[in-house]
């Protein structure tokens, strides 16, 4: 009988606390208060190890901080156009080698220091001197950065470059305060609409509206970025009101849980993220073009997308996204044809290592790839590595892999194939020439050259492109200002609001 008593007691406790706590929420319930005091919490997948995107690789830091905390002279809008941000306007010289940026007045860093042309020269010089990322080479084209007066900065390029201004819209163009770089890992100082208010490691980052922001004040007073390692836990949090937005659905099969339009809203758009089946071009067996081509023929991309990512996303066929002006559907280059694949392999069988990050899309895709490659005689052993560190170390840095699967999220990132030290170990001088010509040429020439470059990559089977990662956002009904397409590096909170 004692047993029954305990159960009642335990049940009573549950009900009592459920009742008293119901609805108070963690601020996200948004009861009362002025609209200014409103806050939202947004669920993310990967928590940054630190907040310094000048020295730490990975997408998590710019996703949280760029545009929101740090601003550049320009930014990318939802259509992929470059629009003014800290620069009111810019003039390009006729030889396209000199950019004169006119800076906005009355801009202050969150530390209180005014933003001037000195900060522009400081920030851009710092990319060369202090940054530790591979992508910093994108700004190697800069010859010098000069201050003309407090509100005018002049950037001189070594040669004309179409990519320069675009790079300035990424994290590379973020403006730092001369007095605010002492502890980038923990204390970001920027000019953006939000400032870091607290960071509970392993749990969440809190951003608060910047009271001295120069531009339109953001509709929300605070935003909580809540980090989940487990897709199901994130889903449950939205289902039970723990968060208001899932920034990127990690378990697309579960979307039907959010089918009720009275409660939830699903945004499905596109990203820059090419999910690449990387092949190590630098060592056997994938230094052999025929073997790489066989892989591309062996994979049934439609089946892969349907099983691995619930059919969400888009088949692409090369290293460009549909939002790029030079995008062409290249899925027809290597149609699914196991017989052709076997023929290309010449009856040989191979044992290879597929070292993937332990992320849902990679683990799912790898199992499909393995099964399909097995049909043509390639036995791929899957080895999941902890992401980011272990994968970065083994695959990205050391290039010790045969096959890998990773979502390359950086925008307009075809150029990584031009770097033969990059982990693809792809080396085709012709590709490099096309890219260089594209960067220097007119807009039309750029588009033509890059179309050709994408075709070359595909023909060479430099890698296989499994699918374009979808931008899948689920939010509570009433949340507005969600970005339909995730084509920049940041998750732009500036328009986020709640009705």
């Amino acid at each position, binding site marked *: 009988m*004692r*047993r029954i008593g*305990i159960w009642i007691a*335990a049940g009573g*406790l*549950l*009900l009592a*606390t*459920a009742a*008293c*706590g*119901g609805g*108070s929420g*963690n601020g996200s319930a948004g009861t009362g208060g002025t609209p200014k005091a409103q806050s939202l919490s947004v669920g993310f997948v990967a*928590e940054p*190890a*630190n907040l310094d995107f000048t*020295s730490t*690789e990975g997408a998590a830091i710019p996703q949280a901080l760029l545009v929101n905390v740090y601003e550049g002279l320009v930014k990318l809008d939802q259509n992929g156009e470059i629009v003014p941000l800290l620069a009111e306007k810019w003039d390009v010289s006729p030889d396209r080698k000199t950019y004169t940026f006119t800076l906005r007045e009355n801009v202050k860093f969150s530390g209180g220091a005014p933003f001037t042309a000195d900060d522009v020269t400081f920030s851009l010089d710092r990319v060369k001197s202090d940054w*530790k*990322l*591979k992508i*910093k080479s994108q700004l190697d084209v800069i010859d010098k950065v000069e201050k003309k007066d407090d509100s005018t900065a002049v950037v001189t390029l070594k040669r004309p470059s179409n990519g320069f201004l675009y790079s300035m819209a990424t994290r590379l163009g973020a403006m730092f305060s001369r007095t605010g770089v002492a*502890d980038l*890992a*923990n204390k970001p100082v920027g000019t953006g609409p939000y400032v870091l208010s607290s960071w*509970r*490691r*392993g*749990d969440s980052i809190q951003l608060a509206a910047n009271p001295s922001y120069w531009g339109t004040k953001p509709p929300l007073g605070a935003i909580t970025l*809540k980090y*989940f*390692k*487990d897709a*199901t*836990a994130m889903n*449950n*949090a939205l*289902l*039970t*009101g*723990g968060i208001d937005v899932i920034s990127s659905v990690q378990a697309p099969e579960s979307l039907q849980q959010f089918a009720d339009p009275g409660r939830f809203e699903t945004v499905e758009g596109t990203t820059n993220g090419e999910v690449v089946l990387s092949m190590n071009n630098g060592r056997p067996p994938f230094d052999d073009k025929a073997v790489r081509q066989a892989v591309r023929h062996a994979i049934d991309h439609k089946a892969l997308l349907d099983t691995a990512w619930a059919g969400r996303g888009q088949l692409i066929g090369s290293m460009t996204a549909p939002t790029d002006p030079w995008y062409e559907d290249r899925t027809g280059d290597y149609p699914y044809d196991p017989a052709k694949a076997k023929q290309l392999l010449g009856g040989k069988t191979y044992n290879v290592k597929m070292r993937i990050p332990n992320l849902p899309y990679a683990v799912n895709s790898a199992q499909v790839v393995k099964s399909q490659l097995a049909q043509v005689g390639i036995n791929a052993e899957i080895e999941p590595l*902890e*992401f*980011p*560190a*272990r994968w*970065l*170390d083994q695959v*990205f*840095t050391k290039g010790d892999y045969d096959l890998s699967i990773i979502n390359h999220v950086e925008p307009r990132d075809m150029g990584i194939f031009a770097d033969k030290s990059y982990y693809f170990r792809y080396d085709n001088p012709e590709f490099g020439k096309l890219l260089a010509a594209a960067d220097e040429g007119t807009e039309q020439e750029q588009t033509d050259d890059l179309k050709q470059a994408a075709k070359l990559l595909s023909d060479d089977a430099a890698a296989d492109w499994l699918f374009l990662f979808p931008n899948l956002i689920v939010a509570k009904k009433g949340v507005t200002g969600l970005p339909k397409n995730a084509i920049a590096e940041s998750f732009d909170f500036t328009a986020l609001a709640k009705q």
Partner: protein
Amino acid sequence: MILYLLKRLAVLLASTAVAAVAVFAFMAVLPGDPAEIALGVNATPDAVAELRKQFGTDRPAVAQFLDWAGGLLQGDFGTSYVTSSPIGPQIGDRLGVTLVLVLGGMVVALVLAVPLGTFAAVRHRDPLGAAISAASQLGIAIPAFLAGILLVFVFAVQAQALPSGGYVPIAESPGEWLRSLLLPWLSLGLVQGAVLTRYVRSAVLDVMREDYLRTARAKGRGSTGALWRHGLRNASIPVVTVLGLQLATLLIGAVVVERVFVIPGLGDLLLNGVAGRDLLLVQGVVMVLVAAVLLINFVVDVTYHLLDPRLR
């Protein structure tokens, strides 16, 4: 008794020291130089050498160990190579969360197991007693994370009565703190309670066969009364041992429940550290976990001696 205490204390200190050496040695063989990892792909050899100097990883292993161990004695776990923030406070925060989680779970387990196990023993010939035994067998066989997932499904997603996860510090809101911990406590407590129930049952059964209880019964006293007066103390000895063992394994074992309920505990910090190659952090967390288990063992042994008159 004092002699025993002193001897046992010496063993504790020696074991902890050996453990520190073992943990340090293990981390030293981990592939990957912290400086190289921190600097990434394009680092120049000079920069790596300079950072090594800054980290202090260019010195001989013995010097590094002494430095680390000396820091530990003063509660200083060093500064993370990856996050460049001090490690000690992080471990402190996380340990606090995990302790609350595990201790709460153990309370739930005890509240379930002591009455149920005793009942199952006293009435071990009844169908009800047998049913409790069977239920506890089944409870042991269910993985803790599965119990957690099911509890979330029922109480959070379906009933919308409790949060599905997340942790709210008590300072922020005591009510929310309690709500955020109820399901995690329950999922740890149910599974551990099932294990404990069996030990309580078997301990009480053993005690019931002891002569003094049968004497009491023969004298006409109710067996329950005699059990209460004489038996529980003896029955508690094996139960305390098991409790200690459970506590020791749960400090890290709770990580699955932390994962299910998105609770920033010590196990979660360890997994993050491993994934982020934050070696010094991993070293610190492992050391804390190991030292905690050694300490728990010490307490259990001493309690054992206090409870068991034969050992005094």
